[in-house]
């Protein structure tokens, strides 16, 4: 492998890793705020991809606009689902397991609903990018990958700014730390949890548009990336924001390099073996190791 090829692979792995990071971030902030493992996060990704596509068919906007549209729609859907279903369950004080199982039900519901609306065939995304690569010295990089990395990193930066500097973001953080104390301080719990799901939805939807533009959109496109993001979030340490970002990118890089250097068929398996080995050494993921190191 030449250096140039290495760099190209690196960019590809980074792009797919950034997508996993976005989904994993959504999973992680939901776990942090509510303790719920959201199995329907992958389906939110699918909704983002589908809506980005629908927007393009309505008005052929440029890619960043589609990205925003898909993300916002997925965010709105996530908030609706949270207020309609998960909140109802929480208010009824059902055990946590019941909420997790209902997210599995939600995943079935959204997949089958999407199949009814958009059909079972994968739908190709329109060609939004120039095909010829950007030539940077000896390295040739597809503009699409650059866009993906830039948009995903921008999204993560926006998330950090939101969590740190806005009232809504701070209340999300407070609720994640201690829901009861946050409520005593006058934070509206319902609103904070709903905005957590909203943010997770926006991140997932954004990932959906990026993923769709790389491959295609289909009713079940979210399941596997959702599971992989779940693995990435675990690698990073469940509930840790930095961990989710790092976990996603590491997982994307591992996957890409295994696919080219070891075996395409076993690329997911190698990722999983590494996952198990890493969890054996660091039972709480990267974040656990960082906490211990401190």
């Amino acid at each position, binding site marked *: 492998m030449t250096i140039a090829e290495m760099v190209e692979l690196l960019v590809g792995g980074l792009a797919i890793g950034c997508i996993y990071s976005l989904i994993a971030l959504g999973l992680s902030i939901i776990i942090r705020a509510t303790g719920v493992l959201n*199995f329907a996060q992958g389906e939110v990704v699918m909704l983002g991809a589908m809506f980005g596509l629908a927007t393009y068919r309505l008005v052929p906007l440029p890619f960043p606009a589609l990205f925003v549209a898909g993300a916002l729609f997925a965010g709105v859907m996530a908030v609706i689902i949270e207020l309609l279903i998960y909140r109802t*369950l929480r208010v009824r004080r*059902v055990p946590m397991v*019941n909420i997790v199982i*209902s997210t*599995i039900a939600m995943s079935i*519901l959204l997949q*089958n609903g999407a199949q009814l609306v958009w059909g079972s065939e994968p739908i190709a995304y329109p060609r939004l990018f120039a095909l010829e690569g950007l030539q940077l010295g000896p390295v040739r990089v597809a503009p699409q990958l650059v866009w993906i990395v830039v948009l995903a990193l921008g999204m993560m930066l926006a998330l950090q700014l939101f969590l740190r500097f806005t009232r809504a973001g701070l209340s999300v953080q407070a609720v994640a730390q201690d829901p009861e104390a946050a409520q005593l301080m006058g934070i509206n719990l319902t609103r904070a949890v709903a905005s957590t799901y909203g943010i997770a939805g926006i991140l997932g939807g954004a990932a959906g548009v990026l993923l769709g533009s790389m491959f295609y959109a289909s009713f079940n496109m979210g399941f596997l990336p959702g599971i992989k993001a*779940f693995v990435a979030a675990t690698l990073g340490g469940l509930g840790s924001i930095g961990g989710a970002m790092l976990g996603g990118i590491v997982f994307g890089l591992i996957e890409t390099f295994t696919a080219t250097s070891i075996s395409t068929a076993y690329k997911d398996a190698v990722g999983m073996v590494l996952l198990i080995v890493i969890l054996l050494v660091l039972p*709480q993921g990267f974040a656990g190791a960082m906490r211990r190191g401190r």
Partner: protein
Amino acid sequence: MSEPVARVSPFAIAALLAGLLALLTLPLFLGKYHLHIVSSAMIFSIAAVALQLLLGFTGLLSLGQAAFLGVGAYTSGLLATGLKLPFELTIVAAGLLSGLSSLILVPILRLKGTYLGVATLGFTIIVHLVILNEEWLTHGSLGLMGIPRPSIGPWLLRSPAAAYYLYLSILGAACFVAYRLVIGRFGRALSAIMLNEDAAQASGINVTLYKAQAFVVSAVITGIAGALYAHHTQYLNPNDFSLWRSIEILLMVSVGGIGSIGGAVIGAFVVMLLPEALRFAAEYRMLIFALLLIVLMGLGQNGIAGLCVSAARAVSRRASFDPGRLERRELAE
């Protein structure tokens, strides 16, 4: 104040007997197709009971059950088609190999909660990919065909009803084994681990050993269920053992009620048969299934078993009105 444990409610006994009678006479009423579906549900009940042992009685979340099911199914299927071994041998081999494969995972049992769930999920994905890609062994995505029906000694169980009774008796045996394990010393150790691992360790329970034993037993039972599945459907496809299958088994246990062996069986029947029963709704059936699932979870009970328990309690409370009861409750509080 909790009621004494030894007292089994007459409703539970009545329900158990009615259920048993229904299961025993079922082949008389069902056509071939429906008997096939019910038999599959029975086989998955065995797998659900095995997961119940982990989730409901040890507090271990395993998403690796599909892998054990797959190891068992392919072991039995390959031995039966390749080496023409008899059913009694292949099913034992399936249980053994599945149990052996679970030994690889024993080191990860020290992971907690969701982390263990993710690690076992990884195992399912690995095994699925091996089944899919090692074509020389498993025939890959073509699937494994021509697996013979189950047989006992010289008798090939050609009639679906005979096979049904075989599955029923193995399910009965699995429930019995699970029940014996759970009520005894072993089960008490497991529930101590589930309640508080550190406290269990401090009380001299070898946490790692007990967890590993529960895990291996569960894998052996699941492997046997896999073998039955192979001989029942007579055709295996790698996608029968994807991650989704693990999630499905998890659904069975939580629909039925976590911590109840009977619940696992009920849950497996509901998860397997409800989509069949909803066939009239055509493409809407999974939507309805999911909605029903959400409603069940929203009732806030521990699955169907929890629902039955509180219903039976409400009925018996009304039936046996006891004026002293209220005062006693006040005293207790």
